[in-house]
């Protein structure tokens, strides 16, 4: 008996050492598969130049899953990952939880020129209690993609308002369906996840509504919002220009592939899709245009502010190396590469004046205009819970489960309860 016991104990002890963590600089990054692949290449370049070994931790494509896979180790005060990308929406939670290393001393030491980055974005999002805790890598906002060949064929102009979209699709959808029964007029992200909130914010802001006003009151339950939400729902059920699985399965990649396979006239997606739509083998190559998202008659153009920022873990054991990699990523050369290869909009202002970039990325003008019409999600540590509530009720409304006014009333109540609970 003793022998067996010893055997078991020894093997337990042995295996506790088995997955010991090697001390490498770990960089956690997710996103669309082609993006992560490209990161591997960039990391290779960094390793060659700096003789620092980097381990890329691949994360899922889904935003929420990426957050989950960061929250778990950070909450557990793990040393890995050392460096990671964060969605704009999470920074407040990460900062307030004490997971981010303040970067001011590094910035000062290396005389890192902060003026090179979009100041407004940094001020909005990257500061916590006066310290810089993250830096932007690229800036994003929602865009309207369209099939310029189809618009031309049916004599439609680029839509300015949602009514224009309806009229355009009316003309085109049934005709196209004769060849392609799976054709839909407008695809957007309606599944129950963070992306839905981005879409929602765009719809309501384009009607003049918002989630929180300047005074900090919750204004979810407003007439403008109800109208916009009703419209979202009608797109699927009443006008039927958006597919029925919009609210079950449509996320960024699903929407992109749907449009890319030639099954849609209009698409709402982030800038990253541009490159893929125009890649070799894409059925819509050369047929795609970009514009600002439409507005309601009395509203304004609105695009959700997205983008990913980079931060160093407070618990990292390789803070200096992480800072080196961070500087590398924000260098002119790499920012330009990311722009040209992944169509990411650089956080560095100087890239926008680069001649090669201006030549290759034709829609820089549209982007600049879109950046002027961005609207951001509420910036609070408990934003993720607010988002959960919005996701749930907006998705329920667009799936037809509950009425829009009911949904927003409940959402308002839920959010107020959260604010009350988590406000310090």
């Amino acid at each position, binding site marked *: 008996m003793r022998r067996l016991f010893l055997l078991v104990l020894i093997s337990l002890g042995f295996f506790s050492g088995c997955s010991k963590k090697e001390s490498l600089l770990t960089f956690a990054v997710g996103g669309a598969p082609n993006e992560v692949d490209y990161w591997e290449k960039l990391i290779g370049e960094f390793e060659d130049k700096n003789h620092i070994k980097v381990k890329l931790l691949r994360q899922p494509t889904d935003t929420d899953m990426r957050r989950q896979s960061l929250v778990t180790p950070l909450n557990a005060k793990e040393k890995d990952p050392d460096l990671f990308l964060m969605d704009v929406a999470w920074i407040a939670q990460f900062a307030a939880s004490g997971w981010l290393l303040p970067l001011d001393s590094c910035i000062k030491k290396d005389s890192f020129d902060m003026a090179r980055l979009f100041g407004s974005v940094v001020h909005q999002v990257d500061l916590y209690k006066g310290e810089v805790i993250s830096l932007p890598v690229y800036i994003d906002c929602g865009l309207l993609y369209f099939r310029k060949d189809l618009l031309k064929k049916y004599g439609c102009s680029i839509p300015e308002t949602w009514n224009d979209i309806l009229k355009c699709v009316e003309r085109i959808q049934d005709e196209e369906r004769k060849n392609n029964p799976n054709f839909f007029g407008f695809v957007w992200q309606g599944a129950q996840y963070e992306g839905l909130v981005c879409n929602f914010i765009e719809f309501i802001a384009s009607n003049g509504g918002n989630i929180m006003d300047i005074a900090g009151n919750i204004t979810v339950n407003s007439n403008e919002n109800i109208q916009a939400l009703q419209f979202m729902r009608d797109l699927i059920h009443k006008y039927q220009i958006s597919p029925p699985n919009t609210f079950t399965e449509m996320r960024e990649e699903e929407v992109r592939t749907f449009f890319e396979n030639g099954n849609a006239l209009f698409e709402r997606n982030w800038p990253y899709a541009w490159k893929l739509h125009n890649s070799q083998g894409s059925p819509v190559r050369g047929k795609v245009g970009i514009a600002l998202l439409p507005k309601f008659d009395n509203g304004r153009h609105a695009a959700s502010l997205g983008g990913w920022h980079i931060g160093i873990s407070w618990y990292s054991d390789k803070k200096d190396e992480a800072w080196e990699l961070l500087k590398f990523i924000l260098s002119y050369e790499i920012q330009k590469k990311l722009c040209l290869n992944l169509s990411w909009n650089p956080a560095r202002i100087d890239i926008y004046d680069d001649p090669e970039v201006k030549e290759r990325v034709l829609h820089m003008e549209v982007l600049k205009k879109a950046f002027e019409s961005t609207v951001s999600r509420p910036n609070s540590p408990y934003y993720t819970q607010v988002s959960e509530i919005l996701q749930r*009720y907006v998705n*329920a409304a667009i799936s037809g489960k509950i009425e829009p006014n009911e949904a927003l009333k409940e959402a308002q109540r839920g959010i107020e309860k959260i604010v009350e609970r988590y406000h310090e």
Partner: protein
Amino acid sequence: MNREIREAFFFILPLGIFVLLLMLLPVIGSFWISLWQDVSFLPRKFAGLGNYFRLLKDFQFWQSAGFTLIFSFASVTLEMVAGTIIALVLNESFRFRGIMRGITLLPWAIPSVIGARIWQLIYRYDYGLANYVLRGTSGLSVNWLGSSGGAFLSLILADSWRTTPFVAIILLAGLQSVPQGLYEQAKIDGANLFQRFFKVTLPVIKPVVIVALIFRTIDALRVFDVIYVITGGGPGGFTTSISLYSYKYFLLGDFSYGSTVSIFLFIIAFTITILYIRAGRFREAAL
């Protein structure tokens, strides 16, 4: 006598240690956490039973509790019926019976997540197997994962698929212990096939059925894996079970509230277990 007690103590000690440290202690620990405000971005402070009062007023929670109950009821019913059918089939002697038993075990043997993924694809609206068959036969397609009813149905099917084998095996053992003599007697008395089933088989295997019922019910209340993979709790939070609801709070960094919800589930499961034990069924089986 003393010697045996001492020996028994040492033999049971390892099990006792593991169970104490890794099951009992953590439950108490979770309860302790639920008495605080433990949120990753807020200062820690004592909350007493505050979280529990919050739980009582939490509409979403009661929704998930209701869903969990209805889900358990429906799923267990389906498993019992299907399990009985399968057990009856396996009880007969025919060629390849052994292989059939093996095949029956397969849905239960594989990781729940893998089964869930397969079903998720089957239910996929545009190119899944379910709608392909439906469209072929009736021209309709069901929004399995996008409608509340559809999601509910799809989860019950997926979960029952995985757990029916377990029920079937238990019932099979029960069937095999029915004395043949009873059937002979019933045949002589003129009972036909169906009458024999209801009047002879069922009453005799009743204890086994109850065992399976209790085990499966408590298990169903804890459901997490299939829901996490297939619907994620949607649409609109409709299919969020209690376990999943608790998990979501853990992910949001609110350990205290998540623990509160999980303790609630623990109390329910524990109560049912105690009631069942008290009902005396297990005194005999234990000895």
